[in-house]
């Protein structure tokens, strides 16, 4: 379990009884892509809405990004994870648009969660790959993470070194890359999230999430979208004890991108 933070470090979690702090956030349109076999698309859309933004469903076979300001590739088992996780989804027509938008001057923010992260690595937007968990089993649990890079489009709300807890659930979650790629990631501070309180799957360098050089594309294996709503979140939080399923540490990932885009 993550270490407790001091009061100064404790992040302010959005208070849902209040209107979004900045009404401009509602104008930010975040696309959520559904591939055949995507599972967490509704969850990701809900997270965007709870954070105060507007979620826009995107269909993998379309070629139009519908003018969205950012894109989330949610978790699931696109194409059943057959062949390799994410290997088939990355050929979807919409992926070409996303790769273009992410690489273009604007540098559209893209977040890949779990299977979405796997798609991003298969599409070569992020280095490395995921293989089966060290213990070869699907693993679902609340997972401590340390935020190593609070400068990306998706992590601005966090403090460097802050610990958070969000659910982890996957079968192919072990992050691997060759030594050179790992050294490069570390040297350029492109590791965004690192597992805290024990490496659950054997990932190299305890890596849970990484970013590209520009910081607009982030991929991570754990699921921040499952820790955004009190009563339906994680059982734990990086900022101390919370009630059953009251952990909402993941929400700031989504608030971060909205703020990034309204800055």
């Amino acid at each position, binding site marked *: 379990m993550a270490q407790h933070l001091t009061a100064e470090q404790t992040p302010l979690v959005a208070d849902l009884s209040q209107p979004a702090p900045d009404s401009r956030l509602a104008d930010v349109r975040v696309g959520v892509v559904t591939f055949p076999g995507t599972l967490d698309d509704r969850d990701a859309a809900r997270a965007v809405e709870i954070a105060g933004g507007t979620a826009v469903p995107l269909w993998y076979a379309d070629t139009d990004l519908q003018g969205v300001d950012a894109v989330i590739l949610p978790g699931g088992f696109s*194409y*059943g994870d*057959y*062949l390799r996780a994410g290997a*088939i989804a990355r*050929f979807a027509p919409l992926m070409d648009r996303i790769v273009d938008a992410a690489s273009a001057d604007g540098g559209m923010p893209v977040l890949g969660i779990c299977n979405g992260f796997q798609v991003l690595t298969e599409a070569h937007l992020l280095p490395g790959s995921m293989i089966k968990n060290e213990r070869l089993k699907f693993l679902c649990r609340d997972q401590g993470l340390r935020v190593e890079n609070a400068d990306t489009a998706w992590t601005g709300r966090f403090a460097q070194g802050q610990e958070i807890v969000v659910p982890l659930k996957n079968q192919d979650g072990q992050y691997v890359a060759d030594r050179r790629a790992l050294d490069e990631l570390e040297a350029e501070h492109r590791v965004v999230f690192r597992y805290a309180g024990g490496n659950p799957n054997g990932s190299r360098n305890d890596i849970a999430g990484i970013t590209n050089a520009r910081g607009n594309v982030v991929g991570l294996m754990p699921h921040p979208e499952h820790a955004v709503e009190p009563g339906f979140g994680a059982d734990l939080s990086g900022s101390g004890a919370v009630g059953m399923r009251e952990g909402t540490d993941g929400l700031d990932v989504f608030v971060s991108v909205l703020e990034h885009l309204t800055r």
Partner: protein
Amino acid sequence: MARIVVDVMPKPEILDPQGKAIANELPRIGLSSFTEVRQGRRFELTVDGEATEQVLAQAREAAEKLLSNPVIEDVVNVSALPEEH
């Protein structure tokens, strides 16, 4: 040192969802010559010394007992890899 290859395939009559998913994708990326894809598994077993008939027999046994599930899979090949130079 020698290596023995074991190839395991889903039985012909058994549904192969992996192969089906790949077959559906191939024409979409412009490769339309293939009418069917079946996905199997390959194992490489390394031994000290040569791949003698006795070792191959053990590999066959390993293939039947452990590497494959006879209810849904067939062992289609157990053979020594040519020596690497």
